[in-house]
């Protein structure tokens, strides 16, 4: 159990011109569940592997607990890792797989047996202790990999996409199990995924990475409600937030010739972000040409074009939808971003204006 501190951590692979990770600062509290999320190739695994000690750190410092671990071997860092392909030792039984790390640390036979038994009970692996990994299902192997991590009682768990080899249903179950287990053990966890839903449901705090740099750190809801950039806005949440080109004209936010809200900002272009569930189909408002409809059962997502720009609206009713609909926008629920940098602009939006008046 320990806090983990990353200070200005960077990584440049030898033979590569640009850095895979740069300037990463994260302060992880003791017992916290941190999820690193981002698109493929954004450097999540690289960052995790630097914490694990499997990849040399090019710059910056990593502390686990109060120890600077930059130059320590993985075994000395007091961490345990769960790999995407589980990386179980194929020739060892489940019991030996779980015991191997402890055995190498010179634990007594009695302590070994006891800890393995505890972990096996916790993970309901009792009946499989004498099987080889090949005789287990994917989900069971996943649990053995977890078992191997918790037997050691490390300072931190590191997970690299541990659920991505499982089918969708099992993934949801395992997700909950991991979360419960981590809370119960109170061990600090660093978890890598590219699945934003997994990230949202697991994390105490999310770290959104883009191109090797941190875009935003925050609690899932905070990141969801106030994305720090257009990148985060479009990455977190499904369907993705619609981003549209708008501009400010003498205190009025204008989209496709319609006044959307009154804002306290100078004239000029802005990017307007709208979450599908914040929008409603209304008798009047922003006109949208419906392109296609995604039926999800409980709700449907209506995709359409507003003045040539893609917009998604969540609709719960069952009534049929005409080709041309009108969209009502709640001025309290819109996100404004700088058009050039993509960063969030904290612009004061005024309360309800009389109507979506035509200009």
């Amino acid at each position, binding site marked *: 159990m320990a806090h983990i501190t990353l200070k200005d951590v960077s990584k440049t692979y030898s033979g590569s011109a640009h850095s895979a990770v740069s300037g990463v600062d994260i302060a992880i509290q003791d017992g916290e569940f941190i999820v690193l999320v981002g698109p493929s190739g954004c450097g999540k695994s690289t960052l995790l592997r630097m914490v694990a000690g499997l990849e040399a750190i090019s710059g910056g410092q990593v502390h686990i607990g109060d120890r600077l671990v930059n130059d320590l071997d993985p*075994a000395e860092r007091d961490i345990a890792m769960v790999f*995407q392909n589980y990386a179980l030792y194929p020739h060892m039984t489940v019991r030996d797989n779980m015991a191997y790390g402890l055995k190498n640390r010179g634990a007594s036979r009695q302590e070994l047996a006891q800890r393995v038994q505890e972990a096996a009970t916790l993970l309901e692996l009792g009946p499989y202790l004498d099987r080889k990994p090949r005789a287990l299902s994917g989900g069971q192997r996943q649990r053995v990999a977890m078992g191997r991590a918790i037997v050691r009682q490390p300072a931190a768990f590191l997970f690299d996409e541990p659920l991505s080899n499982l089918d969708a249903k099992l993934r949801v179950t395992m997700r909950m199990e991991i979360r419960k287990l981590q809370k119960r053990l109170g061990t600090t966890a660093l978890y890598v995924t590219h699945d934003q839903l997994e990230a949202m449901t697991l994390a105490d705090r999310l770290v959104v990475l883009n191109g090797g740099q941190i875009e935003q750190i925050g609690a899932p809801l905070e990141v969801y409600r106030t994305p720090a950039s257009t990148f985060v806005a479009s990455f977190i949440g499904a369907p993705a937030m619609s981003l549209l080109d708008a501009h400010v004209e003498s205190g009025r936010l204008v989209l496709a010739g319609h006044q959307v809200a009154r804002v306290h900002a100078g004239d000029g272009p802005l990017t307007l972000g709208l979450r599908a569930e914040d929008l409603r189909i209304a008798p009047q408002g922003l006109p949208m040409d419906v392109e296609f409809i995604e039926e999800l059962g409980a709700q449907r997502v209506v995709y359409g074009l507003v003045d040539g720009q893609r917009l998604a609206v969540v609709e719960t009713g069952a009534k049929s939808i005409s080709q041309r609909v009108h969209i009502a926008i709640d001025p309290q629920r819109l996100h404004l971003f700088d058009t050039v940098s993509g960063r969030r602009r904290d612009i004061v939006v005024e309360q309800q204006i009389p109507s979506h008046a035509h200009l």
Partner: protein
Amino acid sequence: MKPFDHLVLILGVIFLCLPVVMALMSSTHAAIDIHTNGLSLLPGGDAMATYGKVLTHRGGFTGDVTGLLMLRNSLILGLGFAIGKIVLSMMAAYALVYFRFRFATALFWMIFTTLLLPLEVRIMPSYQVMAQLHLLNTYSGLIIPLLASATGTFFFRQFFRSVPDELLEAARIDGAGPVKFFIDILIPLSKTMMSAIFIIMFIYGWNQYLWPLLMTTDESFYTLMRGIKSILQVWIGSQIPDYNEAFALAVLAMIPPVAVVVVFQRMFIKGLTESDK
């Protein structure tokens, strides 16, 4: 089509088995019998006498060489080759695959190109080195110069490269150093590969003829291969060669390699079906 398929297969089996059966059967006849009636497909009555004589009769110039001694020498050679080559080539492959050092690839290709050179090419210099080291007429001298194995190194290298990196990483996190990882993880995983190479190398060692002929002048180092040859050499004289004994020795010479193949192929197949990659 079915009967025809079977016919072809049966002919193939006969073609392959007949010489072996013939050798086995002929070895149970008396030499004079073979000389007058030719090879035989039916058992004769001299089996016990012939095999007993072959195994225990003291022959050679010194009168010390028995079939058993030759059998033992051949076994030492076969086992020494197989085990030595596996140990050496596994360690070489381990270094090449898992340790980053300069010119590793160049070194590997240097080893690999020696595959192209047969033993006969370097047999004279090897002999000279062994002579200078005073290792003629020793088991070490017989075995050590042939231990470096490009084939074995190549196979183990390819195998190690197919082992997922995550396994090494998991082991590192579990606190296994280079030696532990090799012993605890790689060696058990290589069982299949090891048994395959054991089969090949045992037979390679067992069948060595030219090298022992050159390296040993002391008769107590005679191998079965040389024994068979020396029985047939009598041909030059006026005697009838001891065909039956030559056949009996040949049969004896066949048994250990066949046993090795049978035992290790079972392990080999078991390993193939067990590995889950």
